[in-house]
């Protein structure tokens, strides 16, 4: 297939970026979106031009590294699909495709389509874990977990940390991401001990890092490639309010 690509090019965070148009012929329709960009980059390198920089690694939808804004949608418009799992057969021959980086105050552009998402790691560092040390823990089956809760917890834990939810949110909120982690533990007995602290610390960190507030538009759920549900946000809000009253964080 033949394509016209409008790709955001930006040398680094200190200079302005712009769209550059490329024509690409004979793209196999079985190729993935990133393989299509590989083909473009091979051509650019041979022409002595600067290849397009983008994040990617596993190319099977699990590492969360890839993330492109494609025709106005994070990871493209298809449901439950990461950029690397998007195949060219989903596009029409002759199509014009616009490709941009995640755009969010919390994710400064590093180069072209690559952004800095380290703020997501900082959110987890605030409390997205159970603080057990290595060793000295009880036998695994000493902690039975209701299967239904375990399954829901697993669903929440499926978040790949791609940041599409933040990128698509008009407020740049990380609520879906944080609530997924909070919910994973809120649904398990292991998570109860620190539950009140965890939710308050993670929410506080979200504010510190400049993520926006949630205004319940739910664009995040619609665009999340892993189908993380906004019910997690509701669960987190409930837990947060209860925790704030019962056991506010000591400053």
């Amino acid at each position, binding site marked *: 297939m033949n394509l016209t690509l409008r790709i955001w090019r930006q040398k*680094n965070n200190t200079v302005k970026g712009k769209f550059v148009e490329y024509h690409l012929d004979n793209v*196999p329709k*079985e*190729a*993935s979106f*990133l*393989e299509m960009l*590989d083909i473009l980059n*091979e051509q650019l*390198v*041979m022409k002595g031009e600067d*290849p397009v*920089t983008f*994040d*990617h*690694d*596993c*190319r*099977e939808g*699990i*590492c*969360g*590294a890839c993330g492109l804004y494609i025709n106005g949608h994070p990871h493209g418009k298809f449901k439950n699909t990461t950029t690397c*799992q998007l*195949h060219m*057969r989903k596009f029409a021959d002759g199509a014009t495709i616009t490709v941009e980086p995640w755009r969010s105050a919390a994710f400064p552009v*590093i*180069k072209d389509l*690559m952004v800095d*998402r*380290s703020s997501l*790691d900082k959110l*987890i*560092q*605030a409390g*997205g*874990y*159970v603080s*057990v040390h*290595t*060793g000295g*823990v*009880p036998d*695994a*089956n000493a902690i*039975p*977990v*209701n*299967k239904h809760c*375990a*399954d829901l*917890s*697993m669903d929440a*834990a*499926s978040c*790949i*940390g791609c940041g599409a939810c933040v990128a698509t949110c008009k407020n740049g909120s990380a609520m879906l991401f944080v609530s997924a982690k909070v919910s994973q*533990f809120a649904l*398990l007995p*292991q998570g109860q001990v620190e539950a009140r602290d965890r939710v308050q610390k993670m929410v506080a960190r979200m504010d510190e890092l400049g993520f926006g507030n949630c205004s319940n538009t739910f664009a995040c759920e619609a665009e999340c490639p892993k189908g993380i549900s906004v019910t997690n946000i509701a669960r987190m809000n409930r837990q947060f309010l209860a925790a704030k009253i019962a056991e506010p964080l000591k400053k």
Partner: protein
Amino acid sequence: MELNSRIPEGPLAEKWINYKASQKLVNPANKRKLDIIVIGTGLAGASAAASFGEMGFNVKVFCIQDSPRRAHSIAAQGGINAAKNYPNDGDSVYRLFYDTVKGGDYRAREANVYRLAEVSNNIIDQCVAQGIPFAREYSGLLANRSFGGAQVSRTFYAKGQTGQQLLLGAYGAMSKEIERGTVKMYARREMLDVVIVDGRARGVIVRNLVTGELERHAAHAVVIASGGYGRVFFLSTNAMSSNGSAAWHAYKRGAMMANPCFTQIHPTCIPVHGDYQSKLTLMSESLRNDGRIWVPKDEKKAALLREGKIKATDIPEEERDYYLERRYPAFGNLVPRDVASRAGKERCDAGCGVNNTGRAVYLDFKEAIQRLGRKAVEEKYGNLFEMYERIVDENPYVTPMMIYPAVHYTMGGLWVDYELQTTVKGLFAAGEANFSDHGANRLGASALMQGLSDGYFVLPYTMQNYLADQIGVPRFSTDLPEFEQAEKEVRERIEKILNVNGTETVDSIHKRLGHIMWEYVGMSRTKEGLEKAIGEIKKLRAEFWQNVKVPRLKGMNNELEKALRVADFLEMGELMARDALMRNESCGGHFRAEYQTPDGEAMRDDVNYSFVAAYEFKGVDSEPVLHKEELKFENVEVKQRNYK
């Protein structure tokens, strides 16, 4: 150089207990004065870093990706083994040990494997305590499933995303330590060399991938947990940035490489479809629990399938050859990976392969759907089926899946002793980067176990034993001439690549290397083919240095990153071929066509090859020196593997 595996005295089951009882310790005040560098944040690196941090050491961790959570362990699907015997089906530490040694075709060290089996149960306890949402039964207790090479159900899993959940657990534990300040994370950094001072590993040179600057980091000890080198084949189930460079430069600085030719080719991957393809996707081995593998009995029918004239569902039951069930009635579709891969290749070579390429076999769920119902199948494998449909554009609930073997895992790696220390003092290797535990073939669900065993339960002890002697050694300055020199050499390597300015892209050369490796150093190897491969790799390496084209850019430069890795693969591939050529036997993933039984089974040679092959670097264009670590089996009877 001498190889000393330093296996503790005493009966097998007491070695690790004795080791721990007599190892040296470091008191808390001294721990704060000791620095450890960890390269890699996969299961092995992240669990080690978290544990070191908790113990009170100062830890610096490095990874290539933008976040430690993206290490390729994240992609592991199927599960993790442990000898819990929760299903009460007769499992035990000894049995897990036995299966692993046997599965590895008797080319692994007994003492290491036993320790692995011993700590496997602690891993599951640890992970549950961390809040990893493992699959559960309605009773609320943990669920298990079976995996290739075992007759018990000992595999714990979290949907088809076990690696993701285990890694996020280790990442969480490490994040906790980052917050506490004991661990410092350096993401988007690639280690390009180890720095040796007075015979000990004392630091690394890394490239900051964002700025392009080289950085020096010093420490009292260095752990390499950089994963496997399967990408030497270009196409594999590994991630795009998976590489062998960290281990390779350790090798060039005096650490030995062990069994480099032992590569695992996984039987259930989505077949290759075009030369623009960048990676192969694994369909978890767990699918073999319920899927049945077949090809048409009749070559002519296979030809019609290839031409698209008939469909798989047009082939009646009696015309299907369930070749694994036919050849291996005891294990059927659950034979170990190497056996399943070769059997698939054999059928395709015989002209019975399907897909338009003829390089695929069917994995059929029809019977499972009839037996369990579509819903149950969906619950177990839903995400895998979805992934398949996305890539192949066919619905596996209706048409059988097509699969073919692909490079998946490297059993070989840095040689380590019982303490996971390489032949360079203070340089340790963990996870897929080392060679220990899996012999010539790894069983499913054992890599996750090994990575976490190394990081949570082995290194914290052995590292302490090493560092106990180092408490008097003050922090190192990175101004030492050894750092200066190492950085200079890295800078020269980079300059040399940038200066070639030829006419071939890095990927195009990498793909050609991949073809050579797959053709001659892949599933079936011969003396002739391997000699040819060595020649061709050398030629290709020369071509790389004369004709590769890498742009000179300020800051971020993906092409340069790839080029540095491929330059190393071009050396590594040769060592793999040499090792395969040296090993005149077939064992595990290493199949030499000259050494097979009349019915096509692998023929091991225990009289002459029951050893670990460890290579000492002598220069890029010189032959490496082979050192042999003899393997002694005192606790298992060495038998020809038989899955019939």
